[in-house]
């Protein structure tokens, strides 16, 4: 439905906000490569993130080969295994999920959804991407330096991260730390754009409480990331000092091969505090955009206004704030004052309250909705179920007494993959199926999409559900081999083989998705401007894909919130945000 009338902006008083000066590219290079257009930058971010994410996917296969069939594949040495798990984790969390949600979706959706022509600092926005790309290349380079990439585990805990028996301790760890520092510098440039655009470049009528929840999620996640990433930056720089300059920030007095090292007096726990001060907010930096996006997918595809919009906004803000005071729940087994353990367990469990409110609101939005089981909707539903499952095992791990025996077992791996791996990835897929028509003007194939969904959803459960049980037997994580460990029964080994097979199947389903993305570019059905009959502004652009400057001659004017679906008495089952109320037609106004 591309025929939403655009008379609203024409008949409204002219916007008195100054139009931003838009940078106009003059050559092919500045239009498509060194572009300052947020939409192009978004695609660059997304393609790069998927590229490096694919590397991490292949690494996960290699991990599963070893875990499922130990001793079979001789090319996987213990050193290589540690390198695989380290790089898989770091790439997925930072270079794929964070970059894709904020750099990809943030860049594409914020200006369009708030009715801006572009981000407010386009040059810094462009730099943000290029620095991200350099960060990725530095990371990739670590595969090719002597000793290979670091194998310190994705948390990079010192002292072992820079000790001589850890794989990649020569060049790999240095490149990893430099890459993280670059990523953070690049992200800060992008983050300033996302926040200031939301604050200062909203079009007329777009109050904060009329913004779609997608924008709210990305906005709050960005604020969190801006405040939390410096912790990782500080930790990375301090560890670089330890490695390169011989300081002892994190390095205690150590004896290695009978020789006392020159380090002395450093505190490994200090690193853990810094790392998790970033690390826990990071979970919500990924989750909040997912929460926002999934709210919009559900409302649009169930043709219902989102239940409890205000509560949803407050919950996003409250979760963002609370996530800064829970970090030490990752450190229960590192040793801490019992009162601190009690404090952090309590704050951790309190976060479940606003999170549960969100889940109830999604379910209540679906309740008696006109649910269209489109691919985006299937992925949104898959997210809710997965997130609830992953969240519930989080309640176990949040309690100190239960966490202590489960810590460092595969149960933890299963938990965080459910809640932070599969759940957000479900939203990413749903969001791509939802917004691909706006980005390209073509629909993705629904048939392939449904195949992709079912294999991914069922497969992910068959991977991670059994993994909880493997963990409950006591199978430790981060072990190259668990065959000779008395507590790990043979049945757990059989489950491991099964999990590995499923991991390959799910992995190959992603190739179908990539094929769909490429194939539909040329062969997909023409989408029109608003194929999902959605209300938010990005679907009301004069052209699809939106051209440079997004809105043609005049900015849109916003008259209502983003969730006017199935309004009684309205001629259609949705009313776009830029449709003014007509006197006498809408009783509620």
């Amino acid at each position, binding site marked *: 439905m591309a025929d939403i009338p655009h008379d609203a902006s024409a008949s409204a008083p002219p916007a008195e906000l100054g139009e931003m000066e838009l940078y106009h590219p003059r050559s092919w290079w500045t239009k498509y490569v060194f572009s300052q257009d947020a939409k192009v930058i978004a695609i660059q971010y997304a393609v790069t993130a998927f590229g490096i994410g694919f590397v991490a996917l292949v690494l996960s296969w290699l991990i599963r080969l070893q875990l499922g069939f130990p001793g079979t594949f001789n090319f996987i040495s213990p050193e290589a295994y540690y390198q695989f798990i380290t790089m898989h984790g770091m790439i997925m969390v930072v270079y794929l999920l964070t970059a894709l949600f904020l750099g990809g979706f943030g860049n594409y959706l914020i200006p369009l959804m708030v009715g801006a022509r572009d981000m407010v600092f386009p040059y810094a926005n462009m730099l943000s991407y290029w620095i991200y790309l350099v960060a990725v290349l530095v990371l990739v380079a670590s595969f090719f330096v002597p000793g290979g990439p670091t194998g310190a585990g994705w948390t990079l805990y010192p002292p072992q991260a820079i000790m001589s028996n850890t794989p990649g301790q020569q060049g790999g760890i240095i490149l990893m730390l430099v890459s993280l520092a670059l990523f953070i510098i690049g992200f800060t440039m992008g983050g300033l754009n996302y926040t200031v*655009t939301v604050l*200062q470049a909203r079009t*007329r009528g777009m*109050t904060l409480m009329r913004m779609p929840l997608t924008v709210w999620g990305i906005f709050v996640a960005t604020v969190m990331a801006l405040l939390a990433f410096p912790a990782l930056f500080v930790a990375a720089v301090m560890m670089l000092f330890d490695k390169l300059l011989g300081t002892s920030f994190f390095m205690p007095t150590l004896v290695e091969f009978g020789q006392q090292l020159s380090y002395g007096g450093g505190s490994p726990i200090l690193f853990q505090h810094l790392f998790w001060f970033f690390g826990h907010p990071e979970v919500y930096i990924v989750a909040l955009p997912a929460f926002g996006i999934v709210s919009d997918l559900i409302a649009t595809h169930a043709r219902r206004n989102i239940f409890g919009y205000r509560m949803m906004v407050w919950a996003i803000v409250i979760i963002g704030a609370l996530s800064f005071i829970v970090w030490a729940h990752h450190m229960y087994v590192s040793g801490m004052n019992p009162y601190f353990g009690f404090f952090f367990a309590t704050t951790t469990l309190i976060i479940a309250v606003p999170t549960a409110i969100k889940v109830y609101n999604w379910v209540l939005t679906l309740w008696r909705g006109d649910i269209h089981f489109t691919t985006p909707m299937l992925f949104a539903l898959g997210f809710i179920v997965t997130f609830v499952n992953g969240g519930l095992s989080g309640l176990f791990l949040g309690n100190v007494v239960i966490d202590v025996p489960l810590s460092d077992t595969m149960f933890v791996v299963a938990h965080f993959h459910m809640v932070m791996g599969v759940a957000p990835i479900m939203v990413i897929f749903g969001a791509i199926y939802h917004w691909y028509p706006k980005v390209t003007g073509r629909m993705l194939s629904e048939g392939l999409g449904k195949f992709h969904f079912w294999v991914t959803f069922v497969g992910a459960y068959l991977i991670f559900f059994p993994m909880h049980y493997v963990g409950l037997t006591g199978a430790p994580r981060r072990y190259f081999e668990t065959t000779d460990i008395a507590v790990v029964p043979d049945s757990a080994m059989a489950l491991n083989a099964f999990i590995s097979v499923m991991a390959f199947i799910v992995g190959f389903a992603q190739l179908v998705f990539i094929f769909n993305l490429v194939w539909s570019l040329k062969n997909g059905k023409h989408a029109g401007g608003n194929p999902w009959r959605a209300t938010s502004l990005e679907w009301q652009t004069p052209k699809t894909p939106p051209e440079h400057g997004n809105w043609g001659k005049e900015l849109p004017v916003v008259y209502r919130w983003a969730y006017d679906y199935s309004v009684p008495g309205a001629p259609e089952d949705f009313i776009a945000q830029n449709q003014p*109320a007509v006197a006498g037609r809408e009783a*509620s106004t």
Partner: protein
Amino acid sequence: MIAILAFLTVVALLVLWWISRQGLMVKPWLETDSVATLGGADQPRLPPAQIGLGIFLAVVGSLFALLISAYVLRAQLGDWRGFPLPGIVWANSLPLLAASLALEWARVRARHGDIMLAQAGVIGGMGAAAVFIAGQLWAWTILTANGYAITSGPAGSFFYLMTAAHGLHVIGGIVALARPIAKIRRADDVAAIRLSIDLAATYWLFMLLVWVVLLLVLSGWAAAFLALCGRIIAGSG
């Protein structure tokens, strides 16, 4: 992690104050406008660059608060030994103060339209900041020569790390000062020049503030002050 939590509490209070003015209690589903009711223009907004700088300073503040947090955590361990701050470090506060004052002066002059005087203020600020950097490097040389190298102990390592982080931000600030000067040379719009100088002055004020806090922490005065507060509170209880 007390320092970063205290810093974030301040940030959170600011956000709360801001958010309380954003109508988060409205019921957007009931508030649909027609062309007539949307009426006048939105409230005038601050330039994006000003908001951007504010957020950037929050990020920088978070960075230094984390460094201080790490310092405090480490200093609580048993084997902590103090580090003799050379006198030059204290004296070095003067050029930084001068740089900040020069930019404040430039800010006032630019507001009055005296662009040439404002330019002199900016250049003066650059010069004073360069003196500060030279002084810091000198302090490092003295310390290293006296056997207090970066590896001499945890307090020393933190001293070098924190002064380097601050110094890099100051150098970044000097480079950024080229912007208002370029705007003045190009004879840009007065409002643009004024904004540019305004942003620079705010940044330099913040750098001065960070330096003062770092000095208080590194010299142990902050710890002594907090200990005194603790005693007073304990005594009154």
